[in-house]
């Protein structure tokens, strides 16, 4: 079945499954326990911690495992703001951040005395660093959130430039790298990142695990209190198997990034997809800036076609992809990202996102194009009748 929805969740890698299996089959072991099985589980966790740290240029001790990207973003936003006194809880973030950042910010504004400012983006979805800088208030801004690359349109953001501005104002820089950690990749040191959010399943690891990488010295309040695991920043028994899968996926993603030609091959697959779709629909509009950011993501608008209808017709042919964004019920609603990029709600509802990754093939792409051809054929008479 052609799967073109890696940005929603990537298929589990064989390496990740192999790393998880022995830990799932082994007798009970809490990585914090002071006995043989506990030490074995702990060793697996620490190996994974090194693998995850290596992916993003961090020290292993900076990795705080969480339940996923959403928790990592929440810990970063709420934890960094609550670490500051009231009056100095300013947050500046791009208007196209993931809801895990935006909604955590809205909570902090409503319930924790934070002040939130959204930095606008251009039509490609890229934040204007000058406008961003203009929103910073030295001494008052605690945190600046700029994602590495957007999950809906793939556009890369000027993270290093934003980090420099944040540091000048005495603020921390949060980078949500949930989508970009594999390709194009981020580097804590090079990009000046203080807090970095990751999710295992976008890398080909399991769901239910992620990490917030916290640069040494970055002050943060924990949200979960209890056993004091993860340097007291995230209490809770560590899911050793899931973490081992995360580590293996991170190692595989790093190997891909360093393999000559891998990124180019992925970009070529995407180009093949775009060319195929263009041939079917000359009026196709590409969202974002495919030259930057995520090489495997293609967000396109089919003018006059509802994304909901296209998705149904593609699903009926066994092709998996997604619309810009979905609400809790699963309905396609106009994406805040596309609206921030200056699109009309009607245009946002016509957007379909295809995303490729580690196991994608030319056959997947060709099957998707063939399915789109059939979907457009079904929808065509309706257009003519209007």
């Amino acid at each position, binding site marked *: 079945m052609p799967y073109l929805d890696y940005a929603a969740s990537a298929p589990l890698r064989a390496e990740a499954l192999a790393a998880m299996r022995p830990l799932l089959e082994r007798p009970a072991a809490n990585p914090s326990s002071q006995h043989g099985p506990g030490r074995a589980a702990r060793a697996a966790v620490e190996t994974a911690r090194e693998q995850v740290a290596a992916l993003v240029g961090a020290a292993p001790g900076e990795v705080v495992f969480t339940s996923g990207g959403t928790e990592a973003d929440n810990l970063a936003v709420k934890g960094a703001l609550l670490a500051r006194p009231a009056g100095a809880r300013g947050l500046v973030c791009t208007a196209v951040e993931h809801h895990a950042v935006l909604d955590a910010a809205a909570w902090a504004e409503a319930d924790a005395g934070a002040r939130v400012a959204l930095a606008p983006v251009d039509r490609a979805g890229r934040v204007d660093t000058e406008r961003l800088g203009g929103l910073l208030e030295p001494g008052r801004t605690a945190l600046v959130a700029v994602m590495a690359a957007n999950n809906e349109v793939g556009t890369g953001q000027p993270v290093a430039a934003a980090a420099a501005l944040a540091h000048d104002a005495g603020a921390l820089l949060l980078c949500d790298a949930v989508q970009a950690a594999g390709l194009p990749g981020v580097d804590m040191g090079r990009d000046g990142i203080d807090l970095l959010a990751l999710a295992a399943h976008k890398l080909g690891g399991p769901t239910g695990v992620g990490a917030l990488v916290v640069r040494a010295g970055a002050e943060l309040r924990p949200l979960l209190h209890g056993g004091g695991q993860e340097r007291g920043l995230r209490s809770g028994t560590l899911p050793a198997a899931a973490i081992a899968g995360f580590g293996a996926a991170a190692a595989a993603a790093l190997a891909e990034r360093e393999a000559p030609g891998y990124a180019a091959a992925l970009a070529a697959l995407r180009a093949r997809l775009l060319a195929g779709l263009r041939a079917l629909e000359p009026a196709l509009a590409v969202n974002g800036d495919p030259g930057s950011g995520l090489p495997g993501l293609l967000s396109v608008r089919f003018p006059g076609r509802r994304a*909901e*209808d296209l*998705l*149904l*017709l593609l*699903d*009926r042919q066994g092709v998996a992809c997604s619309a810009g964004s979905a*609400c*809790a*019920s*699963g*309905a*396609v*609603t106009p994406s805040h990202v596309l609206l921030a990029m200056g699109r009309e709600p009607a245009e946002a509802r016509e957007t379909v996102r295809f995303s490729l990754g580690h196991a994608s093939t030319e056959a997947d792409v060709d099957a998707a194009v063939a399915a789109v051809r059939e979907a457009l054929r*079904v*929808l065509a*008479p*309706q257009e003519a009748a209007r």
Partner: protein
Amino acid sequence: MSQVLVAMSGGVDSSVAAALAVEAGWDVTGVHLRLADTPAHLQVQGKGCCTLADADDARRVAGTLGIPFYVWDMAEEFRRAVVDDFADEYAGGRTPNPCARCNERVKVVGLLERARALGFDALATGHYARVEDGRLYRAADRAKDQSYVLYMLGPAELDRLRLPLGRMTKPEVRATAARLGLRTAAKPESFDVCFVPDGDTAGWLERRLGRRPGQVVDTAGRVLGHHQGAYRYTVGQRRGLGIAAATPRYVLRVEPAAARVVVGERAELAIRAVELERASATDGRGLRPGHAGVRLRAHGQEVGCQVVPQGDGRVRLDLDEPVAAVAPGQAAVLYDGDLVLGGGTVAATVPAASPGG
């Protein structure tokens, strides 16, 4: 194999309709319409309609049946065509039927159009009514009959509409749900207007339209009291008039332009004719002169009438006997036995006591 789209609200009726569609051997796809955009954490379990819990219920039933399932966001269409219209109608002194409006614009006609555009052969819903040989009939379960809210369908729609519950009673539907292990088997009935979950229509209208104080008068124009908004009143209403009178008074007319509510004796509620607008016939050939039965509210008594077409979608119905309390905006639906002939929206009424007409 017939490709059928089933509208699944998450309730027991549409769940069983979907199950029967699968049992009929059709290639079934389920769709849930998201009609309200209330944030999930503000929704009250079991209240209103189209909540997240309803979408989840529908999704689980689709999972049990093993059919593909989608949620479509039609909140904007619903708001424009049904919710705004509901408020506008009350503001204009009429009493709308939002369910008929929803079927006409969103749930049935709108969905039929989308189903056809997507290549489906038919749409199935959980309405209690029968479609046979392209004609619309009352449901076998008279108490549950919903043919009243489907009167606006024409042959093009009826040809592609499947109503699997048409010959079943509600207990049979619940028993079928239980037999199939559908978790919605014991779900309570939904009542009232789905977008007014607390049932307080007057309060909902006041939040939406603001206070519009005015006078309560009798037919001679004498001021009997004051009100906070004419939209709070509907023809035939007796309670909440805020006036003291020796005999019970009823709302006879609502005059929003003058912010006036006219009240009178019970006998004055009687009407002998209604004038319909936007009238249509289920056979698509227009309503023809002759005798028919008419229902003037969803579960009202049927009375005989002479159908007198006036052209341009307007029809007058001369009632065989006076009927009390008919409000402009209501649907009037015409029957010949169980067959639904068509209907229209009440534009005006002719009091039994007055001359002419």
